[in-house]
């Protein structure tokens, strides 16, 4: 009996968040007195009041990419994806982190809230404007976003590091054991990916930062882990459930399994491949299918992994390899992994591009490839995720400070956070983080990116800060 109630509470929490999005959307298009707005508000009030009646208050928060109602994270569901995404943006635009409804609410309160909310969109300091306009509405209070964890918290970084290197070490182990024909269980692989998924849901920037550290000796293993992390991060933006993210992460981790058949001397060759060597490289999708299907009997994950191992170089327009007799639309995961794979390969100094590219250069090349090699829709999500200046980009600011992009900003893609390593006087510094959305009293941005440079050329990366 208690469970049924609990489930209903969770369901109504979802509906409340959704309904808040609905009324804000409707209010954008219609007058406050419009019947559509009034009906939507009535429904919101009814839903909210029933929760307030049973739980005392209604606390609606946006933490990271997720909404929480009374401390419980609202689980993803596709039917609400559009509205949740919309509401998240509206919150972020206003630096709004939480709304607390303290006691039973009336439609008039919500009318007032909507008016204030919409008006604040055009303000220089939206949160402050919103607070002022809501001064008379006493049934609710608003707050700024809570930080997930204090930035630079030592424990978190240690955990991110541990997860990342565990994953690389595990990948090395499993690839070597498959190479020597041993039977391996994928129980551990699942665990590895699950911990990456957890971190992406909570500490995405730090883990993405790890993928930006290039130049490891054991490229193939790090590449596999990076592709897995990038794929999961993209999958998260696409609204995939935790369980699907694990599957995607596993599939991505195994995408280059076929490379176990290619001798290390070729893989790690400092010069360009010969035609014969290319022939071998082009076989790795076939060998990938073989390695994966030999690993364990067929099951859903093995099938998906084999498909992605086979398709990840085929390209959206089938211009890549292998060429097949009857091409059919690439699997959804293949498209995701192709994006992550190209991005990581281009920004690393191995295999496909002898000369590593700066992240922003790689992105602009990938942009040219949309519609031909790459799926345009997924690329749009990808670039919205990594931003104009992806994590790890070396930038010079108009303040003459030199730094590395450390955290992207989904609302202002050209205003990430930057880890400054050389200050405006040209001296090397211990590394401090600046937020490019910061403005001075006159509303002018304090810092803006002037130019980007290739971090690999100078072997500069986030290692020093992250490791």
């Amino acid at each position, binding site marked *: 009996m*208690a*469970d049924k109630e609990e489930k209903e509470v969770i369901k109504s929490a979802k509906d409340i968040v959704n309904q808040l999005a609905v009324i804000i959307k409707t209010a954008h298009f219609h007058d406050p007195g419009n019947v559509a707005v009034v009906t939507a508000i009535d429904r919101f009030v009814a839903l909210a009041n029933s929760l307030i009646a049973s739980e005392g208050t209604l606390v609606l928060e946006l933490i990271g990419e997720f909404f929480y109602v009374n401390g419980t994270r609202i689980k993803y569901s596709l039917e609400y*994806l*559009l509205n949740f*995404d*919309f509401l998240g943006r509206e919150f972020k635009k206003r630096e709004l982190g939480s709304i607390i409804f303290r006691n039973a609410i009336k439609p008039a309160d919500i009318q007032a809230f909507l008016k204030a909310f919409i008006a604040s969109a055009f303000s220089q300091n939206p949160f402050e404007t919103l607070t002022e306009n809501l001064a008379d509405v006493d049934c609710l209070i608003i707050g700024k976003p809570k930080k997930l964890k204090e930035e630079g918290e030592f424990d978190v970084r240690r955990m991110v590091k*541990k997860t990342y*290197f*565990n994953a690389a*070490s*595990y990948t090395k*182990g499993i690839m070597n054991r498959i190479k020597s024909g041993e039977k391996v269980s*994928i*129980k*551990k692989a*699942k*665990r590895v990916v*699950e911990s990456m998924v957890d971190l992406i849901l909570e500490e995405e920037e730090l883990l993405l930062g790890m993928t930006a550290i290039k130049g*490891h000796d054991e490229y193939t293993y790090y590449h596999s882990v990076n592709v897995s992390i990038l794929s999961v991060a993209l999958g998260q933006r*696409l*609204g995939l459930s*935790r*369980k699907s993210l694990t599957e995607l992460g596993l599939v991505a981790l195994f995408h280059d399994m076929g490379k176990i058949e290619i001798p290390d001397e070729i893989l790690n060759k400092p010069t360009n491949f010969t035609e014969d060597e290319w022939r071998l490289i082009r076989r790795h999708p076939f060998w990938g*299918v*073989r390695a994966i*299907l030999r690993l364990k*009997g*067929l099951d859903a*994950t093995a*099938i998906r992994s*084999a*498909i992605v191992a086979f398709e990840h170089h085929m390209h959206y327009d089938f211009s890549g390899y*292998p060429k097949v*007799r009857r091409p*059919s639309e690439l*699997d*959804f995961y293949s498209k995701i992994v192709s994006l992550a794979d190209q991005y990581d390969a281009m920004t690393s100094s191995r295999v496909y591009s002898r000369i590593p590219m700066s992240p*922003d250069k790689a992105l*602009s090349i990938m*942009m040219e490839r949309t519609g031909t090699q790459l799926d345009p*829709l997924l690329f*749009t*999500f990808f670039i*919205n995720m990594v931003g104009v200046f992806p994590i790890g980009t070396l930038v*010079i600011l108009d303040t003459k400070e*030199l730094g590395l992009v450390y955290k992207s900003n989904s609302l202002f893609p050209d205003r990430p956070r930057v880890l400054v*390593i*050389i200050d405006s006087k040209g001296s*090397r510094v211990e590394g401090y983080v600046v937020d490019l959305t910061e403005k001075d009293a006159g509303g002018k941005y304090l810092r803006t*990116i*002037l*130019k*980007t*440079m290739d971090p690999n050329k*100078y*072997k*500069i990366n986030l*290692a*020093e800060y992250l*490791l």
Partner: protein
Amino acid sequence: METAEDIKAAKEIIHAILRTKKNLRMYPENNPIYARTIGDTYTRFRSFFNYRDELNLKINQNDILYDSEQIYYNPGKDDNLAFFFFKDGLREITFKNGLSETEIEEFLKILSLDFDREFVDDDIVTLLWERDFQNIRYVVDEAFLAEDEDYETEAVREIKEKAPDADELLKAYDDAFKADEVKGVSIVPLTDDHLHSLARELERDVYDKTDKLVEILFEMLYQAESAGDYEDALNFLEGAIEFSIRHGNMETASSIMKRATGLINDPSLPDNVKRQMRLLFSFPSSGEMIKLLGELLDSVEIDEKVFDEYVRFLDKNAIPPFITILGELKSINARKNVINALTFLGGKDIRALASGLQDSRWYVVRNIIYILRKIGDKKAEEYLLKAVRHSDVRVRKEVIKTLGELGNRGVLQTLKDCLEDPESQVRISAARALSNIAPEVAKRIILEKVSGKNFMDRDLDEKKEFYEILSQWKDGDVVDFLMRTLKKKSFFRGAVNDENRACAAYCLGLMGNKDALPVLYELRDSKNELLREYAYTAIKRIEYGR
């Protein structure tokens, strides 16, 4: 500090968990003990939470601690709850007040899984992770996931060695001012349209991935470069067939076979590959695959057309395992499907099918006989003849019926012998079968039988059947016999004699013999009720032409 009472309550919870872990394995979900055990464990949690907000358990290899107090200890490896958690990296579990009965039930179900089975790909932590319980938190130590403990230290050292020195950094700083102005990639902001397209893409993604894999496996076959490549691709195709059957997807299994059939006729395919491909063709007919098919048939309703399509790709090796499962299947539909399959396959090898006549289960034997009859191949006779002496009357009846329908004169003597079978049903069947195969001979034999002394003692139903068979011969000798019987009076065993007369009346009625009418009219006043009734019915039949 926890009180002695708290510790006692925590210990009780551990005991309840241990008990549940055992009971959930022993009893099926619908057993009252199953539900009771879960309910009991839940109650213990609830009473703990009356005074406490959470129950935090620390896990070591051999013991479990509650607030540094040992509440469970087991130095052994068997049934060690502490080790059970510990080995997958769990170091702490916290149950929070608010824990629901569903949550605890799910949790206990995870605990009672048989993790030793090979196909369980998930460990406890993965299962807990997937459930994402609101009120059960845990801490894991992931160190064991790394292959090599020093990997991280080594990797970090290696990267730090490559860190730029001050000069390089300053060079970068200098170069920065010479670099081109930033162009920046323009970002298309996400709109509702993007999200709608994504939703459609996600919908499209729910397709059967096996079909895609099969496409890839055939591509591997086409592009194989060595004998090993061919062998792998063929092995995987077998795997795909098995996977499809296991998951009730017979269409995919059929399509693999269909494509393989097309391929084997491709002249460009090397001969040795064709030889290897024969193995693929025999795979679906193997005992294991047929067994799997049986499980499928029993668990879901399979469309007859889909099933028949698949059966077309089976060969005669599938016959023995099909016979085996025929006797094991529970659903009528499943048996019907298997009978259809055996009818199709049996035609290719009567002998293999007929070996099912040796089966110890009478119903299987009867089914095989039925199938042999449906196939209608005269070759079946030599095997059927042996089943005539089967101990089960239902089998004997079926076999005689079949022999009758196959219509070979060679079995006449056997059928004649069957007229002496101890069971009346069998004797009747034999008489019918005889009349089917050789009417002239049968007439003589049956006339002989019905006029014999023993026949008087048979029960009325059997007599009626025999006379009915006689009615098909409207010849003089039969009519004479019937008229004689009809008129026959006897003082000894009068009632039995009247039964015979009643049957003769019945037979003449069936024949529509008008010459019998005078005698029949008289018999309407007979003292014997049966005779009166039969005479009356016969008259009606003859007068109204049925």
